[in-house]
């Protein structure tokens, strides 16, 4: 199964909506973490854990520290799923 950028973005959106219990969340490629209410560092780690688990990939520790936008995370995931 190949996933497109849009698929991954949709998966991330669903995971974050679940984790924060907020169906109003809309993630875009240029969304930054502080722009999403309650997406604190705690929720961020849980998001990474859940995303890794669901996609079956691992992000590098360095990447997790340096992701600026949702698009950065999507790109890192795409690179591993390709």
């Amino acid at each position, binding site marked *: 199964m190949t996933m497109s950028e849009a698929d991954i973005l949709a998966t991330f959106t669903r*995971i974050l909506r*679940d*984790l*924060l*219990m907020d169906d109003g969340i809309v993630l875009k490629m240029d969304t930054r973490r502080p722009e999403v209410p309650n997406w604190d560092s*705690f929720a961020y*780690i*849980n998001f990474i*854990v*859940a995303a*890794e*688990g*669901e*996609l*079956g*990939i*691992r992000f590098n*520790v360095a990447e*997790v*520290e340096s992701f600026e936008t949702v698009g950065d995370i999507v790109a890192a995931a795409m690179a591993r799923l390709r």
Partner: protein
Amino acid sequence: MSRNSPAQGFRERLRAVLTTHDDMARLEALRTLSEFTPGHVETIQLDKALAGIDPEVIERRLTRVRVAVLSSCTTNHLAPGLRIAALRRGFFFSVYTGAFAQYRQELLEPTTPLQAFGPEVLVLSLSARALIGTLPVDADREHVEQVLQTEIAEVQGLWEATGKRFGAVVLQQTYMDVFEPVFGSYDRIAAASPARVIDRLNDLLAQAARDSGIALIDAARACARDGLEAWFDSARWLQGKMEIAPQAAYRYGELVARVVAAQRGRSRKCMVFDLDNTLWGGVLGDVGIEGLVLGEGSAVGEAYLELQRYAKRLNERGVILAICSKNDPVIAEQAFSRHPEMVLKHSDIACFVANWHDKAENLRHIAETLNIGLDSLVFVDDNPAERARVREAYPMIAVPELPEDPAHYVHALAHSGYFEAVSFTLEDSARTAAYAANAQREALRSTAQSMDEFLRGLDMEVSCGPVGRLELDRATQLINKTNQFNTTGRRYSVEEVASLAADPDCITLQFRLADRLGDNGLVSVMILRPSAAGATELDIWVMSCRVFGRQLEDAAMNIAVEHLQARGVQTLSARFVPTGRNSVIGDLFRKLSFESIGDDGTAGGQQWQLRVSDYEVRPTHIRRRSVQ
């Protein structure tokens, strides 16, 4: 790396629950949902939903416990897992998580936030990382032992301080082996290898816990069983000093909540099994006892055997077993007594209910019979419809989802932690056995459609032999103490009984009755001796009141007649001498087809006679076992 799928249908179910405006109903629905969805993200969602419930409703419906987690690592990510595992058991945990590596200060310094929190339960989650870091890998055995003893002594000091300062119950987490091998397999031998250090530490911890009466949270074992990757992730350790990874929070919560529930007497007490395709393969009513899939020879048959063995093991540690099956009761019980591969015996089952009634009502009946709450039951049934019915009728009964493949039944049951224990003594199993046996007789009587069915269900076995040296004391005691079932009221000394037993012209018989509730022991004695008139007389016959109404008198007379026939005796005479206390057997001989031949010369005494050749063997539900 394998992929985790989100729990099937959970999203929709949770969203449906959240539309419920009534907090009470929403809380109940969340609790139900918590039973099925133990994953990482689902647990966080449930926790958020729980936070939206009116605290007053929580107070009313759940038992609040203030739980503090102090650790040498980061633990605040564990809180949702703790709260949801608590919810699953009807508790609400107010959770306090200490700051990273501040456990000593928080416990020992005079004013800390922990003091304001006032923990009732204190979880001490310690890592061996620091200790292992200071131990050179070439340290000798004595040095290592000394370091480890010092560590455990310090931990014990913390337990004492916790008790004194907060009056809190301590739950000590075992040390997790999250360290990479240094030597390889030789790690288990090398005194200072991390693996060896952890093993030894946990040994010492267990000893200390036993001595101090402290409960353990065995994260080390869970970690070994679930796999290190389920519990530990070096990235999370580096990123956030979490020795327990976020995806393990719900597993950790389970371990803690089980122990807290067990300490408060909320562990389950009784496992109730369905029969067909649960304890054995196949539908008994269709395939008969011979057609059941059970036992060695087929993988499926062995899977059911494994489940029975597991149930037996639980039973040995005091878990009550019961049966609740839609089946013909007679055939169902026969399967227990006759199928050679059955590991579970009648005597292991405290309450055996096989009928065609609603299972939910049968379960209520089982709980009443055993005199335990519905919330003490775990109901194990392969049929999803029955499970759904029971859950709907009685949500307090635990109804685990069974996997489709019986190969995984044991794992599913063991994994659920329904029977968590915080202690084990010999009395546990003994007490439960007696308790179960009493309840069992009651259960059997009330489920039986008739007396006949009750007796058949008892699965009785009589053993008979002459009164020998071993039986002499008990036989004499029975003769002299028995007032009700006593045909003549004669009394004999041990010597007299011994001489009758040794007399080749006499027949002494002693009877033992066993049933599936246990062995009743030596419960009846007969002495047959030549009378003055040359006939054979039933000199005395006594029977313990414990076994009245069990057809033992019929079985015993059948056996006595066999002995008489073997000796060519034509006629047996018998007397009934009223003693004022034996009226219960006033018509015993009439029932046994003796002929009345008038009074015997004593007040109210009756003389009876039996023509041995005319005797018709009386049908009973008692099997024969001959003891020579």
